[in-house]
């Protein structure tokens, strides 16, 4: 709001300046803040309308009549007024604003409000709130920052891996579980297409009343990312460069050659034939110490009527695995333009991102773990296999050969362009018509070539794959917005329409049998398999369309009683013909108790607000065509002496497919003391998802397939979130800011049946061989992610696992008799962020953790036993307790552990240097360490695993180690 006010003042000043008379004298001086900060870009406006901005060292020069009032303002400080008298070198000191936090703008979707006026559960984060360091995606900066928002990276140190984001528990089973991401107004955007340093603010709409303005896509919350915008003023140039290295923090560690030899000799002498005498560290053979660089150059500036910000970003990231490289180039510009005498405001965004990377070969990590460390890497006599040492065994390949004999690279090109044209209907104060059009596309190409020596493709004489995809997204949004204040009544209203169409198409081809490896993927027709009819190709195309009408009214009386009501009519092409449209209403109320006259005695309490809201949201995040009966080629059959294509329905069509609906009720209280120095937020929510979408099991026949995508059942999540912040120490050269977030969520599957479908128990989380068991069950009345297993009672004299209640004959427990072990979901998740200002140093540290929650230790279940020893390696941790010698891995509570942990995510130190140099104005140096330690009782690689989906809490065996990152960087401001 301050920005808008300032902007209007400037506009007024512009107009008035033309009328200014000649008796003006020049006033000069400097503006600084009460905290000693030199304020660059502070605005000075006189009553007669002249204005000026302070330059880089805070100095200004403005023409004003004697005795005329001059107002000096700057965001975050209270305004200061003085009377002009031709002063020279006037020192203006602006007091730090006591209410800055409460006046901060909060994005709420299709508009903004202030923190004090917001009625939904919304968390707004600014640049200062984020962790420092080096991130492959802005999602990394959100870890631990928002109560109830979990951000995890299940694939460890892979620079191309994606983060998984989940808000307030699992609310849907098979449709998308991640929040709607909106970047600069573009809904459904990909965070990887922007650079983390470009993020100005992130607003998280948590509850249903806030998210309902996004209707069908708001079920899992909304994350609104605003990037740094064009700014008027002198041209500023900022360069940021960083270099980081990574080391291994945690991995599944197998026996080394000496241990392997000792274990074979002691426990499995019959397998001594598999000792080959070499000492190979297979992990070391395929990894390196990765060094990455990131460079960013931002240029901004311009006049009030035309300004821009342009960013060029270059990244080269290395992964731990040799060859696992990634490059990213980003060019982005934002232009801001005023036209037609203030009637028209234009905002253009153009961004082009190119990513080129070699994906990690996860299978090579797995083979490196499994491979016998006494085998050598090479065997020059083995010319059939390219000089690598090989053993003929199933699924057992030389990992060095896997890396050397494969070339793979992916190219991703993103273009994103948008224009926002706002027509300010000046005759009616506060009315504007906003039109937003955006177009984005992504081109993806993946190429992979396995040479004739690639271990799993020996004999195929080179295999080439090429796949391409292209997707585009068009959005149009038109809103009529009105905001005004009448005395103590403040009103903000919006009426809008939105349209979005997504198209995607893809194609792939594969061929093999190449005489020369030199072709790689560049002459794919040269492979003999094509002529033999064994090459393959495929293509696919799909579309979806989404249309909505919506409206919202926000009202407040004297900033004391607040209300917001919204309604959205949403339509999606993905639903059945009769169910394409749905209504999504929301209402929320707020009461700022501290504004009541009877309350003002409590002087230490600077803010106390009660909030309550209710909203309905939906989910349409699943693939197209689920409601239609479509025919698809279905293998071939022998007809009339030749093979012909047969056709079958692509799936069980569901013409009644309808919206999944989530009703959410949220109450909260915001409080602050001592001029907002300490404070916090407490929220309670209850979310109920009905018409749950799921691939429900149906009988075959009458249905063609055993799964049908349909609406059955309901699920509920309820929880409490607490955020506390404070500035415990605030001295001239020492300041400590701290924020603690705590969240608890309880999940419950309420029903999984309806009148038509009455079958109601499901087993999920299947662990494939050798474990061979469903680890979790979906049962009405219980939490998702509930583990069931036989109780492990120890190891008997024969070295076998014993289980409670096991049959004498088989040593097993009937599946019906397995016990409920507990849920994968934690009882409490927390984040604790701290930042210190010590003289010119900034220090920050972020802790994050969870209490409770069960986790299945897949690595241990698979490899903490000697049954395959001799063929493959095992976990070194087996040496800790060698009593278990069983041949059979029995699924039991032995492998289900507690997932509580505490991590030190981030420590960062920065040093700010202000220079008197005409060219280089500011230098900031920083050093960051990320993922420093993890305290946990869990014996696997990382207790923080994927908690989304219907089988959460199972540690995936990606074998990509967790890494620790050290970054050194410098920011130069010119």
């Amino acid at each position, binding site marked *: 709001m301050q920005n808008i006010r300032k902007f209007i003042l400037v506009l007024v000043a512009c107009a008035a300046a033309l009328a200014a008379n000649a008796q003006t004298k020049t006033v000069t001086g400097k503006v600084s803040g009460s905290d000693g900060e030199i304020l660059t870009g502070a605005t000075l406006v006189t009553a007669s309308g002249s204005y000026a901005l302070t330059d880089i060292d805070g100095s200004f020069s403005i023409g004003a009549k004697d005795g005329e009032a001059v107002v000096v303002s700057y965001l975050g400080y209270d305004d200061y007024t003085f009377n002009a008298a031709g002063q020279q070198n006037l020192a203006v000191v602006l007091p730090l604003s006591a209410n800055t936090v409460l006046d901060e703008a909060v994005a709420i979707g299709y508009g903004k409000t202030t923190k004090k006026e917001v009625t939904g559960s919304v968390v707004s984060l600014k640049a200062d709130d984020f962790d420092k360091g080096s991130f492959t995606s802005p999602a990394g900066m959100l870890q631990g920052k928002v109560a109830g928002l979990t951000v995890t990276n299940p694939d460890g140190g892979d620079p191309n891996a994606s983060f998984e984001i989940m808000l307030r528990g699992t609310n849907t089973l098979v449709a998308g579980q991640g929040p709607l991401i909106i970047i600069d107004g573009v809904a459904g955007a990909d965070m990887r297409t922007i650079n983390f340093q470009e993020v100005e603010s992130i607003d998280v709409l948590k509850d249903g009343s806030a998210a309902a303005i996004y209707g069908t896509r708001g079920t899992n919350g909304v994350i609104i990312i605003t990037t740094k915008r064009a700014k008027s003023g002198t041209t500023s140039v900022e360069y940021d460069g960083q270099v980081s290295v990574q080391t291994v923090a945690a991995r599944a560690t197998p026996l080394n050659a000496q241990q392997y030899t000792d274990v074979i000799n002691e426990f499995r002498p019959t397998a001594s*034939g*598999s000792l080959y005498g070499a000492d190979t560290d297979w992990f070391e053979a395929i990894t390196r110490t990765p060094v990455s660089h990131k460079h960013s150059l931002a240029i901004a500036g311009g006049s009030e009527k035309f300004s821009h910000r342009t960013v060029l970003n270059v990244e080269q990231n290395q992964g731990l695995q040799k060859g696992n490289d990634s490059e990213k180039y980003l060019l982005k510009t934002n232009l801001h333009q005023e036209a*037609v005498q203030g*009637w028209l405001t234009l905002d253009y965004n153009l961004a082009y991102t190119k990513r080129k990377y070699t994906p990690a070969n996860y299978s090579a990590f797995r083979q490196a773990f499994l491979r016998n460390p006494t085998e050598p890497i090479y065997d020059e006599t083995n010319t059939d296999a390219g000089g690598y040492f090989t053993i*003929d065994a*199933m*699924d057992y390949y030389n990992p060095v050969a896997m890396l050397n004999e494969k070339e793979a690279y992916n190219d991703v090109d993103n273009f994103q362009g948008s224009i926002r044209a706002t*027509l300010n209907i000046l005759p009616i104060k506060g009315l504007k*018509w906003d*039109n937003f059009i955006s177009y984005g596309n992504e081109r993806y190409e993946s190429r992979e070539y396995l040479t004739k020596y690639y271990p*799993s*493709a*020996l*004999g*195929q004489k080179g295999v080439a794959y090429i796949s391409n995809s292209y997707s585009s997204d068009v959005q149009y949004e038109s809103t009529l917005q009105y905001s005004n204040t009448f005395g103590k009544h403040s009103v903000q209203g919006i009426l809008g*329409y939105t*349209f979005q169409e997504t198209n995607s*198409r893809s194609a792939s081809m594969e061929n093999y049998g190449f005489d020369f490896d030199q072709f790689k993927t560049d002459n794919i027709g040269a492979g003999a398999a094509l002529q*033999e*009819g*064994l090459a393959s190709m495929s293509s696919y*195309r*799909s*579309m*979806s369309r989404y*249309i909505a009408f919506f409206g919202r009214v926000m009202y407040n009386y004297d900033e004391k009683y607040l209300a917001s009501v919204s309604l959205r009519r949403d*339509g999606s092409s993905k639903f059945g013909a009769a169910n394409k449209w749905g209504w999504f209403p929301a209402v929320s109320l707020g009461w700022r108790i501290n504004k009541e006259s009877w309350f003002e005695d409590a002087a230490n309490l600077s803010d106390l607000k009660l909030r309550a809201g209710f909203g309905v949201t939906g989910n349409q995040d699943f693939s*197209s*065509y689920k*409601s239609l009966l*479509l*025919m698809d080629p*279905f*293998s*071939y059959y*022998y007809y009339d*002496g030749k*093979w012909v*294509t047969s*056709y*079958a329905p692509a799936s069980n069509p569901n013409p009644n497919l309808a919206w999944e609906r989530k009703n959410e009720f949220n109450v909260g209280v915001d409080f602050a003391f001592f001029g907002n120095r300490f404070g916090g937020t407490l929220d309670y929510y209850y979310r109920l998802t009905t018409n749950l979408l799921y691939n429900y*099991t149906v*009988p*075959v*026949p*009458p*249905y063609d397939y055993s799964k049908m995508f349909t609406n059955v059942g309901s699920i509920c999540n309820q929880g409490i979130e607490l955020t506390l912040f404070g500035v415990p120490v605030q001295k001239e050269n020492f300041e400590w800011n701290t924020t603690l977030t705590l969240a608890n969520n309880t999940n419950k599957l309420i029903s999984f049946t309806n009148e038509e479908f*009455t*079958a*109601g128990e499901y*087993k999920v989380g299947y662990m494939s061989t*050798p*474990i*061979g068991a469903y680890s979790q069950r979906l049962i009405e009345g219980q939490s998702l992610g509930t583990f069931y297993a036989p109780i492990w009672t120890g190891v008997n004299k024969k070295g076998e696992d014993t289980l409670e209640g096991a049959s004498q004959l088989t040593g097993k427990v009937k599946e019906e008799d397995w016990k409920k072990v507990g849920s994968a979901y934690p009882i409490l998740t927390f984040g604790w962020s701290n930042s210190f200002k010590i003289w010119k140093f900034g220090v920050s540290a972020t802790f994050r953790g969870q209490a409770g929650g069960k986790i299945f230790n897949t690595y241990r279940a698979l490899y903490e036993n000697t049954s*395959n020893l*001799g*063929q493959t390696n095992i976990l070194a941790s087996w040496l800790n307790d060698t009593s278990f010698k069983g*041949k*059979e891995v*029995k699924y039991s509570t032995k492998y289900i552990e507690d997932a509580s942990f505490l991590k030190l995510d981030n420590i960062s130190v920065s040093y700010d240097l202000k220079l008197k140099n005409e060219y280089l104005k500011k230098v900031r140096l920083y050093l960051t360490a990320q993922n420093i330690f993890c305290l946990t009782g869990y014996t696997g690689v990382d207790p923080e695993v994927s908690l989304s989906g219907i089988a959460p809490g199972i540690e995936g065996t990606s074998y990509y180690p967790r890494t620790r990152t050290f970054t050194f960087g410098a920011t130069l401001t010119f």
Partner: protein
Amino acid sequence: MKNIYLYILSALAFGMAVSCTNLDEEVYSYISQDNFFTSEEQVAIYAGRAYTSLQNWGSEQSWLTMDMLLGDEACAPINPEGAWNDNGRYKELQEHRIPTASKLNLMTWDFIFDGIAACNDVIYSLENSKFEFDGRARVLSEIRVLRAFFYYIAADGYDNVPFCIDKLDTSYPKPKDRSFLFGWIEQEVLENIENLADSRETNYYGRMTKGVANTLLAKLYINAPVWGQPAQYDKAAAAAKAVIESGTYALAENYKDNFIVHNETSPEAIFAIPYSTQYIESSDNAFCLFALTLSASIAKKKYSIGDGWYGYVGQPDFIQTYEEGDTRLTDTYLFGQMYDKEGREMTVSIKGAKDPVPYIIDPIFPEEDFVNGRTELEGAFLHKWEYQTDGLLTSYKISMENDIFVFRYADVILLYAEALLRDGKSLDGVALDGLKKIRERAGLEEITSWDLDKLYLERGHEMALEGWRRQDMIRFGTYQNTWWAKANRTPDYALLLPIPSEILNANPNLVQNEGYK
């Protein structure tokens, strides 16, 4: 004036925007139903989907492989690499203790009922097609007989199975027992048999013909007592004789002709499922016995095949029942000295030995090794079907070219002889002559005085690994016996398979078979 333009422009733009409310999905990579059944040919071709579902018969986890493991002819012990434990999955089958959660059993069930659903869908589409064309009645009859075949194996395996022959009735199907299904199957076959093609002409290879229908009837009637029905051996003999007297089929000159890579020319094929390395791309449909049995080194060095999973072996007790000189033994099982593709004697690296040893496999090995793991030199590979050496099979392209004969002429001769004996009659010239030829081509002397015991042994050796062993053993009363690595007698309830728990959970009308509850 500018304001007016702006107002007009705004009004136009707003109008344009709000006008678009069309939410129809445009379909590109599928054929929508309206565009599909637009010609006679398309309707006829659609019937192919029912036949395609048969290809699952020989896949990794299928009716065929489950029958091999439940019967006494093959088994899957822990292999020399320690694999094939799979939480005791194969031991459970070996000991006839199938848990309701068994994945193999579920896959088998799905094979049968996916097939029935496909038949229902095709019958519905044909009956409701607006195209009248020659041969429509025949195609309809083919698919109805195919559906009867699926219900036949369903009832044989599980007894009480959900009965649904109407695609549009989407209520939970109710179970029907063997007594009902016996009558229904008989009626379906008899009603349709006259519409079917007379003989196995080239264009009916792989489809339902009169020969298939009669063989199905013979197999239905001969098992009538097992299904709790009065004995109908005369009908069984008549149906088998109808096949023999059709003059369409004959015994192949060599036993192996039925199992070579291009076996489609065998005169013994009555009910064939054609397979193709080139055309069958999905592993769900692939006949891949080579992968289940061969070790990686045999696969690579003897057959130029990418990989082998090293699991199934011949069951030692069964192997020992072959008569001296029966060539079917080595035509079915691969043991002794292993040779590579150039005919050189192979060696193998084994645990506990520094240097490779001669690769000589002993088909007879201790039953403790089922759980402790067999060595590299123990356990005969299965190689009844000849494995390709053309290099087209890889670790992921696993569909063999060989066709599978679900019904084979030699089976019909054996059935005919058995029906006569069970009916208390002596063997006629047709039976004796057929049996003589079967034994002759196996390198064995003629038997003139047949009884059921001798016939049982002959049937076992002739039909080993072909998917009917469990049924035959139950009929001959040997299924419950103990054998190698099967120390306990099979309880009565385990003569039926359990209804998979996933299936029970998905249909509240179903009741689990006694003993599995």
